[in-house]
């Protein structure tokens, strides 16, 4: 049977406020256990929460960046459950009236652009941490993280492959850093994803039973876990079984998901509006002020790249997938004095491949924007052929210097002297009578082979257009 995978993601982005969402304690990572937990965080009797406006402001930034609706009035609710690292016995979250509703995020997979719809984003506090080692049969509780502000971003089940889910997660990861609301540090847990995965026969409208996978703290785990889980569900159904709605945990050691709790054991969280907090009222003037403080957003930048630079929409989306890549691209265009299309081709082609290989962001690229611009100019003015340019690029990446110096040192300057090219053409024609006969017999392919031979004889330096013209003339 042909299957379709349906994926929705729930992402927790830790907001980059200096203090916690309902207390004045610091949110800095890595302090000694329980040194950043104040009376409010440890839920002493009598303490009360006071909302950090910085967290609200960041939620507004996010809402504006994804084109969502910012609720003029949203409500904090208590999610009640007992756990040792949840000091109050409830988590303050938002339930019925979240601060952000709707919005979309653009992703590109295999050159196809897609918009993933967002359901909502709401503010909540993080819990503390339980430490199960080193305490001789007991558990230790560290409440430093308790009360850290989170924005939980929930997508619609719009993704159809693990790769799409990863593209979405990466786009979101990039966006929250772009607008400065989250440091995106996945090792420290600042950006965490849970995936809801289900499968259905291709063409079916009805959603299958979903499983939620937790503990996905890297893009690689996200992709592997979804792939594993989708396969597990398909095999289960194909073997006559049914998928049980449950929460599953990704085990990175074993490379599999395993059951954590079923829907039947799901707790009744007894949500109700928190009477200690007033509804969050957001005046239109606040939204305007936040909008004015935002940097140019990826969506606006994308429009500008298409409108002003004439880039293909899909290329514009890819270039604006991360702030560092977009900034890099803009710097190349500036240094090259225009020619955005050629610059985009290089940034999306050679440069992106290099960055992927090195697993670094554009802002730590070994090829600086000005260096790439120098090379692009030499390609455009015909100094080097495209083929030679790739060699120059690798040399720049290897730290051999700037394009001009490398071209000279390696003798990669393009041959545009028609006499020299003519001599090469004559050599090639004499050495390949069969190809000449084939061409004359009407085989167009033979011509390309001859051009290839001329380029090869020139060590890739012959101007391809000239070589073409001269060859054509000689073959009559």
């Amino acid at each position, binding site marked *: 049977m042909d299957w379709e995978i349906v994926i929705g993601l729930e992402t927790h982005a830790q907001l980059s406020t200096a203090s916690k969402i309902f207390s004045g304690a610091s949110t800095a990572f890595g302090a000694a256990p329980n040194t950043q937990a104040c009376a409010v965080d440890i839920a002493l009797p*009598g303490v009360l929460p006071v909302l950090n406006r910085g967290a609200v402001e960041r939620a507004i930034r996010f809402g504006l960046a994804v084109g969502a609706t910012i609720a003029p009035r949203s409500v904090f609710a208590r999610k009640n459950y007992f756990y*040792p690292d949840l000091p109050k016995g409830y988590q303050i979250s938002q339930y019925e009236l979240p601060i952000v509703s709707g919005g979309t995020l653009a992703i590109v997979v295999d050159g196809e652009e897609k918009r993933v719809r967002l359901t909502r984003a709401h503010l909540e506090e993080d819990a503390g941490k339980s430490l199960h080692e080193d305490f001789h049969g007991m558990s230790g509780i560290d409440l430093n993280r308790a009360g850290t502000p989170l924005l939980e971003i929930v997508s619609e089940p719009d993704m159809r492959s693990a790769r799409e889910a990863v593209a979405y997660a990466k786009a979101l990861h990039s966006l929250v850093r772009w607008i400065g609301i989250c440091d995106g540090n996945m090792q420290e847990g600042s950006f965490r994803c849970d995936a809801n995965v289900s499968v259905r026969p291709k063409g079916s409208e009805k959603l299958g039973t979903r499983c939620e996978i937790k503990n996905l703290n890297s893009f690689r785990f996200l992709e592997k876990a979804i792939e594993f889980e989708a396969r597990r569900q398909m095999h289960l159904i194909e073997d006559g079984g049914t998928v049980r709605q449950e929460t599953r945990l990704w085990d990175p050691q074993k490379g599999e998901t395993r059951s954590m709790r079923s829907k039947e054991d799901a707790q009744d969280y007894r949500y109700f509006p928190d009477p200690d907090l007033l509804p969050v009222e957001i005046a239109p003037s606040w939204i305007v002020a936040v909008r004015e403080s935002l940097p140019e957003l990826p969506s606006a930048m994308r429009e500008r790249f298409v409108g002003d630079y004439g880039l293909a929409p899909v290329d514009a989306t890819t270039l604006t997938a991360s702030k560092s890549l977009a900034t890099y691209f803009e710097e190349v265009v500036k240094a090259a004095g225009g020619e955005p299309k050629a610059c985009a081709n290089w940034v999306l082609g050679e440069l992106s491949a290099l960055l992927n290989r090195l697993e670094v962001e554009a802002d730590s690229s070994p090829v600086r924007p000005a260096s790439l611009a120098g090379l692009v100019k030499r390609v455009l003015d015909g100094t080097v052929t495209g083929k030679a340019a790739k060699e120059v690029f690798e040399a720049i990446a290897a730290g051999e210097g700037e394009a001009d110096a490398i071209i000279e040192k390696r003798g990669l300057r393009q041959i545009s002297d028609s006499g020299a090219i003519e001599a090469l053409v004559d050599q090639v024609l004499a050495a390949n009578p069969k190809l000449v006969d084939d061409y004359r017999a009407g085989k167009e392919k033979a011509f390309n082979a001859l051009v290839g031979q001329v380029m090869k004889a020139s060590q890739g330096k012959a101007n391809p257009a000239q070589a073409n013209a001269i060859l054509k003339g000689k073959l009559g």
Partner: protein
Amino acid sequence: MFDHTIPELSALLRDRKVSSEELSRLYLARIARLDGALNAFITVDAEKAIAQARAADARIARGEAGPLTGIPIAHKDLFCAKGWKTTCGSRMLADWVAPYDAHVVEQLDRAGAVLLGKTNMDEFAMGSSNENSHFGPVKNPWDPARVPGGSSGGSAAAVAARLVPAATGTDTGGSIRQPASLTGTCGIRPTYGAVSRYGMVAFASSLDQGGAFGKSAEDLALMMNAMAGFDGRDSTSVERQKEDYARDLGKPLSGLRVGLPKEYFTADLAPDVASCVTAAIDELRRLGAATVEVSLPNQALAVPVYYVIAPAEASSNLSRFDGVRYGHRAASYTDLADMYRKSRAEGFGAEVQRRILVGTYVLSHGYYDAYYLQAQKVRRLIARDFAEAFRSCDVIAGPVCPSVAFPIGEKASDPVQMYLEDLYTIPVNLAGLPGLSVPCGLGAHGLPVGLQVIGNYFDEARMLQVAHQYQLATDWHRKAPPGYGA
């Protein structure tokens, strides 16, 4: 001396007729002598009190005294006071020492009041008789076989027995006004948001409000002047100008419109209480006030609505008492769930457990809409009834309790009978309004009866004016329980 009101004591202190240290020692000695029979205090700390009294004396000597400087007070044991045990009347917190001051404690400290001790109460403020305390019931000074009311029964009994001139309390459903009424003291519950709840251990957050007990309306005004005011640590604290609650005390009542809810004067009201309250209203008329009949048509729904909302909030508020970080933890347990179960079963008394169960039930999936949501809707109707009533009157007057103080044990086994004790006080909490109780006569068995004055939002000054003018014309507030006058 012990019959003096705060302004009278304050004058003695200012005129150096007595020092705060002497005054505090007198009261501490009186507590030591009499509280064994009453059980009004959970903690008394003479050492801390005397240190504070000496500081107050120094301040008086410097001429920097305010009206409360050097005045001994007590806090209901629900208010966190740094370095003091803050038990909430519960085994759960029997040994818990608060590491910080509640806003109210801080404010009264700043005013120079001298904290003698922390008063007994129904566990976590849940009760109307003070029988629900882990530290034993409080006795009514008017008759030790009877309850003083609750939940602030310790504060009420302490003020009634002249063990302290004034005390704080909290009022979630009547927990200040009802014990004030049953002990012949004055008690005020301010508008929700007037007094910060920071450091006041939560029972039902949307209903809880700190207030005070004293021997006169003027005492209450002075306590309010210190306690009320905006506090950024409580999101429900209302940001408004500081006001002088005593500013209108001297104004006559001519032209005042007093609303009498017809639903408050029915067969539910004991005849002895009814005749005291009616006489008090007649007195208000003599003082120039006009009375108008008003209606609170949803009054009958207040008690059931309250017993959905308050337990719902309590069930969540009390979740933090899990034995993990502080408070009672069972001595032995097999696993985490067992630790929770045992610690909470041992730490909480029967009434608290009952309300946690009720609250958990009404918030549960499938019941939420029918109970909690519905109760919130009715709550809005009750608030609207008051808004409608206040269109034709300035204050509302009526009874505080349906009857005088009842014998200890009489209602302990019948929670619904106990809950109905708060029939006339609960609607005020649901609407978030201010209310006070002042003594207005002696009913059956010579026991005190209170008159309730309900004001519009932040209209405490007018309520206090009504009470003060009434007290200028009458002396019910001057009556001490037999054997306790001095």
